[in-house]
């Protein structure tokens, strides 16, 4: 991601982040704890917040009041209907799920289609730790330190042809391993999609970990999508296929309830869900409501993708 596209006031400049890491490493070698405190004081206050988050990753688009949710909250409360419809079901029902070996099929309008072992698929990219905001369409939210690679990297390597306009993602379909697929809540397998320019945006991420650890099964192991300016359900989990297409892909929730869930699903406080307001949200782990931000706080980076579009119609 280009430095200029970030809201500079809200993130730690990478140089500061790296400098501090090097500095702390050096301090650690010297065992000079007494020296560290005044030295850190010198770069306060900006570094004070960042020092807490530095070990978890680089913050992207965080507000001053945003703090990462606990590992416990992130890994015990989410939607993953393949393992049940309750928020605690995924953790309860996904423990036996095996993710090794895992093959990702790349196909469609690409110059290099193929089946890849997950490790080979990701190896050429540099893993990054990034702290993102996550806004669920149900009006709750979290702040999550993800580990993964830019989606754009992977797509570039696949070589989209000039006819490619959209990217379609598909979850594993295996009712024996994913018990929720025995019920027809959704038209399995779960599908999601992005416009190609959305997919190429540097904030879109293919994620393999959380909190610096491997992604737990309940969070979509071993490979999931994270698009921080869209509602959480766009973040398709346990991906087995990525296909480049010329037509807009069908997506699971907009097929199930088209009046409530659209293809774009951009976080938008001005466009209500038919059954509840999207103007505010409850942050898991804290009591008071906070305002929902346009594009979940990433408007500076992504709003240009949608210039001229009627966001009320393209919800």
């Amino acid at each position, binding site marked *: 991601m280009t430095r200029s596209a970030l809201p500079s006031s809200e993130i730690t400049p990478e140089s500061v982040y790296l400098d501090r890491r090097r500095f702390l490493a050096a301090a650690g070698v010297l065992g000079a704890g007494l020296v560290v405190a005044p030295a850190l004081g010198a770069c306060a206050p900006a570094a004070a917040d960042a020092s807490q988050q530095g070990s978890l990753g680089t913050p992207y688009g965080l507000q001053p009041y945003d703090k990462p949710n606990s590992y416990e909250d992130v890994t015990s409360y989410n939607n993953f*209907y393949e393992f049940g*419809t309750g928020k605690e079901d995924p953790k309860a029902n996904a423990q036996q799920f095996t993710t090794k070996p895992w093959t990702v099929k790349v196909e469609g309008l690409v110059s290099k289609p193929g089946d890849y072992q997950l490790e080979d698929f990701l190896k050429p990219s540099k893993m990054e730790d990034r702290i993102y905001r996550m806004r669920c369409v149900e009006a709750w939210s979290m702040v999550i330190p993800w580990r993964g690679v830019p989606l754009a990297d992977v797509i570039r390597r696949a070589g989209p042809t000039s006819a490619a306009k959209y990217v379609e993602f598909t979850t594993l379909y295996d009712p024996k391993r994913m018990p929720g697929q025995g019920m027809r809540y959704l038209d399995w397998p779960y599908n999601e999609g992005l416009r190609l320019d959305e997919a190429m945006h540097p904030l879109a991420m293919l994620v393999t970990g959380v909190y610096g650890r491997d992604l737990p099964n309940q969070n979509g192991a071993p490979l999931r999508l994270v698009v921080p300016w869209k509602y959480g359900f766009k973040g398709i989990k346990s991906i087995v296929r990525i296909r480049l297409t010329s037509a807009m892909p069908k997506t699971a929730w907009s097929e199930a309830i088209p009046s409530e869930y659209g293809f774009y699903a951009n976080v938008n406080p001005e466009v209500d869900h038919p059954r509840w307001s999207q103007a505010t949200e409850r942050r898991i782990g804290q009591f008071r409501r906070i305002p929902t931000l346009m594009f979940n706080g990433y408007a500076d980076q992504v709003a240009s993708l949608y210039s001229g579009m009627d966001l009320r119609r393209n919800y």
Partner: protein
Amino acid sequence: MAPVGGIARQPRGFGVLLVLAALAPAVVVVYAMLSDLFMGSNWLGADPVKSGEHLLGEWTLRLLFGTLLITPLRRVTGWNWLAKHRRTLGLFAFAYVSLHLLTWTLLDVQIGISEYVGWADIKKDILKRPFITIGMLAFLLMVPLAVTSTKKMIARLGKNWRKLHRLVYVIPVLGVVHYWMAVKLDITEPAIYALFLAGLLYWRARQARITRAAATVPSPAETVAA
């Protein structure tokens, strides 16, 4: 009909026990919710407000079903002393729905608490979102029933009291519809409630038919058969 199990009279302490049993879930849920929110415990998961709100709603339905279960139970068992406890269950149902509503307004929507939420928002919720409209209607219909539950009111309203309290058949239907419409996709649980309620209402309808038939003059054929 003869009493089953020889309990023609109410066992001692039953009334107190029933009150405690009906009270317990509210105490547990409200305590767990507030403790999770403000004291850092983790009884109800990562979103204690939603969990607590839903549990209070479900207990409202269970208590409403309880009031409808009294008469069939009396018929089957002959325990006619159950009749006077219908009011207890009904009043507890009203208490639970009030807590459900309070949780929604104060802790979930946060009217008067969050600076980002105003009365206009809750008005919009109630008027524009059918599942909330229906839930609110069910609550409003319960208010006159709770108010007229005293002996004095029963005496004062006379025949009209029975008419008014026929709302007990309407309210749980609205409650189940509210629950059904609130879930996203997985309707398993509201469907179980709906099935149970359908059973209770079917029994009533059949009973009413039998009563009506008995009230009319028996035909000669029936007399002969008897």
